[in-house]
């Protein structure tokens, strides 16, 4: 019997011991306002080729993390914080894939930070994440500063969202098969991303072509102003409504604007590369993360188990048997939680090489992917200054 099979059997046997069913402290129970789940959502897809004017470029910034695990000081909670940070890199890519699948947008990229060259920036904050619940806040703002979405989404999984046999029978399933099934399965929280994509689309459909064109124009000039504020700041103005608008139009063949476009092209090559890093991370993490979320769902469900009621019937008995049973319940609950923590550590260990790869040195640049991004923007600014003599 392989170590892996033995491992799963141990986990399965732990799960099967119903007295150990409630493990409430890891990660600490979230105290978030109850938001109704998005339910089953069908992704609105383009029935015909999207009009060019509809093809706004989207940038999804790596999510912030505000989960209770990230704020907890309970021993072992750092593991869950680590997982949340990995999710913050992984989940934006799931959203990206859904937005690409909707076929309603231009380029959709995952970025380490907000980028002035994109038309619409999506910034997410992860509020709760387990195999059972996902809650995130999304802020979508276009380059003019207009908020498209400022909303919290929640999705709850059902058992049907996860492939493989019933968790109580998992000990007799072949783990390789389960892993393969999980790797190919749709994300269990796909509805939340579909809902976000649909909300964005519905908002965009309220715009006229002129308004869409204006967003693209403002993006262009905001990127130019980011490269060379002294040259391009004058082309933009913030209105009383707080929205940016272009006040001075440059000729399409303006040499300065052409240089900006050249630099923007190089910038986009770079952020495409960064987006590919996130794709690699997504590919690397996906099977382990799917398995992790499935365990996480089992654990969350165990927490809700009815066995508590059964247990309460015993309260009041004073015999040694009752006391030892009570201690054993506590002990098994804690053992179960410690096994779950070991799984969390296992997940972090397994994904660590992919994160390292993400932050690997890029030619001539150093530091994390975020730092490299900042360095690259500085380099482009310097190139622009050299080329234009500004």
């Amino acid at each position, binding site marked *: 019997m392989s170590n892996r099979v033995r*491992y799963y059997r141990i986990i399965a046997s732990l799960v099967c011991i119903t007295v150990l069913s409630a493990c409430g*402290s890891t990660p600490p129970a979230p105290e978030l306002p109850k938001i109704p789940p998005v339910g089953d959502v069908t992704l609105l897809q383009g029935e015909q080729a999207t009009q060019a004017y509809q093809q706004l470029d989207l940038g999804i910034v790596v999510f912030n993390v505000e989960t209770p695990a990230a704020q907890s000081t309970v*021993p072992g909670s750092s593991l869950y914080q680590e997982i949340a940070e990995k999710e913050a890199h992984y989940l934006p890519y799931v959203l990206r894939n859904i937005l690409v699948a909707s076929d309603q947008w231009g380029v959709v990229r995952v970025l380490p930070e907000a980028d002035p060259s994109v038309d619409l920036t999506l910034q997410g904050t992860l509020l709760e994440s387990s195999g059972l619940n996902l809650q995130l806040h999304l802020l979508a703002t276009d380059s003019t500063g207009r908020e498209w979405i400022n909303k919290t989404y929640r999705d709850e999984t059902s058992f049907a969202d996860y492939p493989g046999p019933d968790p109580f029978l998992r000990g007799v399933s072949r783990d390789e098969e389960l892993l393969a099934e999980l790797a190919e399965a749709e994300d269990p929280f796909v509805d939340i991303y579909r809902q976000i994509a649909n909300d964005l689309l519905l908002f965009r459909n309220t715009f006229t072509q002129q308004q869409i064109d204006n967003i693209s124009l403002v993006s262009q000039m905001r990127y130019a102003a980011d490269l060379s504020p002294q040259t391009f700041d004058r082309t933009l103005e913030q209105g009383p409504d707080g929205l940016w608008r272009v006040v001075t139009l440059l000729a399409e063949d303006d040499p300065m604007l052409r240089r900006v476009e050249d630099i923007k092209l190089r910038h986009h090559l770079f952020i495409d590369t960064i987006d590919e890093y996130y794709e690699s991370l997504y590919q690397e993490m996906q099977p382990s993360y799917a398995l992790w979320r499935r365990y996480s769902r089992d654990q969350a469900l165990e927490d809700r188990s009815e066995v508590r009621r059964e247990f309460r019937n015993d309260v009041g008995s*004073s015999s040694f048997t009752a*006391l030892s049973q009570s201690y054993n319940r*506590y*002990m098994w609950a804690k053992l179960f*939680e410690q096994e779950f923590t*070991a799984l969390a550590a296992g997940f972090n260990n*397994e994904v660590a090489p992919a994160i390292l790869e993400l932050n690997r040195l890029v030619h001539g640049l150093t530091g994390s992917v975020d730092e490299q991004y900042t360095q690259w923007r500085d380099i482009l600014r310097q190139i622009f200054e050299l080329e234009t003599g500004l």
Partner: protein
Amino acid sequence: MPGNPPPYRPDFSGSWEKDFQRSDRWDEELNRQIEQILQAQTQASNPQSNLLRPTMQLGNVPRGRPAELVDLARLAELISRQNVIDITQTAEEVFVRRQGDAALICGTRQNVMQSFSSPYGNEVCGWEREQLVFRISLPEGVDILHRFSVSPDAQWMNLLTSISRRGSTPFNLIQVYRRFDLPPDAYNCVQTLSRGRVCSATGAPGEQ
């Protein structure tokens, strides 16, 4: 700006084996404590009868507080059976592994913290002077206190386990452990999610 220096914590790390000679025997301790209770009861009801000192044996326990003490003593015996305790301590936390029981884990930075919470019992841990303390509260009103202390030469460790129920007289059991050295581990193992524990021989070719 540098942060506050971490508070001083005694080092419990290492492997510890029970010294049976120096540890309390739970049945002797039970008899001793029952005798004390009965003596106190007798004195309270009849101050003249302090010459009649009843001898209490297991299986012949009157109802009331001594009966409850027997239950608590047996529970103390149940949860103090480990002959070996293995402790890992870092700047962040102390991890007490016990055979056949869940590990006790406590942070080292804070003085008091909740270390486990479930409908089946809560655990709070912390540091009192140089002692590491875990307090487990079971739903029936049973409180279990584990108090670890280490000798100045770090060769001996005392573990006081104290169990009470709804404020009753606690049953105390002191276990004494002696430090011993485990042979170095031949394998270096890393836990992974999908492949279980992945081990390599320490000192294998190519390993630094």
